[in-house]
């Protein structure tokens, strides 16, 4: 596959995912809010079925997005392969914690409101970091 096309694909996919992350964060702010009280208030009244309606499409689509994002790491140089493995584990764990913590909040475990906010912000930051690695390596290869 031509390196130029890989660079285009990385830039195109990265910019689209960046816009989608910003819209996701805006939606989180508009619907819920970033304080623990607002998160608790929002999820406490949700039924299990209501939570699944959001959880299922997010699990499906974000796992595909992570697979597509992380496969670009195979084309770029990092310090060692261990860094790629660590980033992959971190992203998937943060993603799963972020998506499943509302179930615990709805069951009354209010501490998970803080876990949810931390995992959400951590996920966005680590994903941004991965894209920085991909972009930087693409520019070096150009």
């Amino acid at each position, binding site marked *: 596959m031509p390196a130029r*096309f890989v660079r*285009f694909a990385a830039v195109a996919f990265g*910019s689209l995912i960046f*816009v*989608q992350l910003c819209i996701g964060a805006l939606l989180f702010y508009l*619907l819920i809010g970033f304080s623990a009280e607002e998160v608790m208030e929002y999820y406490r009244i949700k039924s299990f079925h209501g939570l699944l309606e959001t959880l299922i499409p997010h699990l499906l*689509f974000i796992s595909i997005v992570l697979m*597509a994002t992380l496969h670009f790491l195979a084309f770029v140089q990092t310090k060692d392969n261990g860094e790629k493995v660590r980033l992959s584990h971190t992203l998937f764990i943060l993603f799963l914690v972020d998506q499943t913590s509302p179930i615990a909040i709805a069951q009354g475990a209010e501490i998970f409101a803080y876990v949810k906010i931390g995992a959400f912000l951590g996920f966005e930051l680590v994903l941004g970091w991965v894209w920085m690695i991909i972009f930087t390596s693409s520019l070096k290869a150009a």
Partner: protein
Amino acid sequence: MKFIVSKKLSDTPVMRIILIWMFTVLEGVLVLNLVAKSIDYGTSLGEWKSVIMGNEAEFIDPLPLSDLVLQVHTDLFALIMIFVMIASVLGRSPLPRQLKVFVLGSALASLLLYPLGWLSVTWFGSASVAAGAFAFILFHLVMLIAGMVLIVGLIRKRI
């Protein structure tokens, strides 16, 4: 992602059949998405403006920002996936390089303009609605044509 790293897709008969079916279904998704949008928002720019910005004369309330953001968020997930699937195969096709750059560049630009247009409706009003609607329709048309080219190319074993 084997189809991304394979040299020629038609050399693998199973992959060729899978991709022909996948792009056929994606063509259907694109058409149905346009139909669904026309049912939700209307078929003219005036109707789109009325739904998103409201219309006092017809007692239509503007769409709440959270509903608009949710709609764009959901749309964008599906449209990014369609773009990635079509771009990953189109990039390998033997079409002229300038044509591929034009098709993928215009699809990417319209896919970025669609959410940015609609979410800036507070500041730019009806111009934003028009930009978002134009980008949404342009993306679907470009992807429909690109998908059709890929289906024909795969059937004729040119890709």
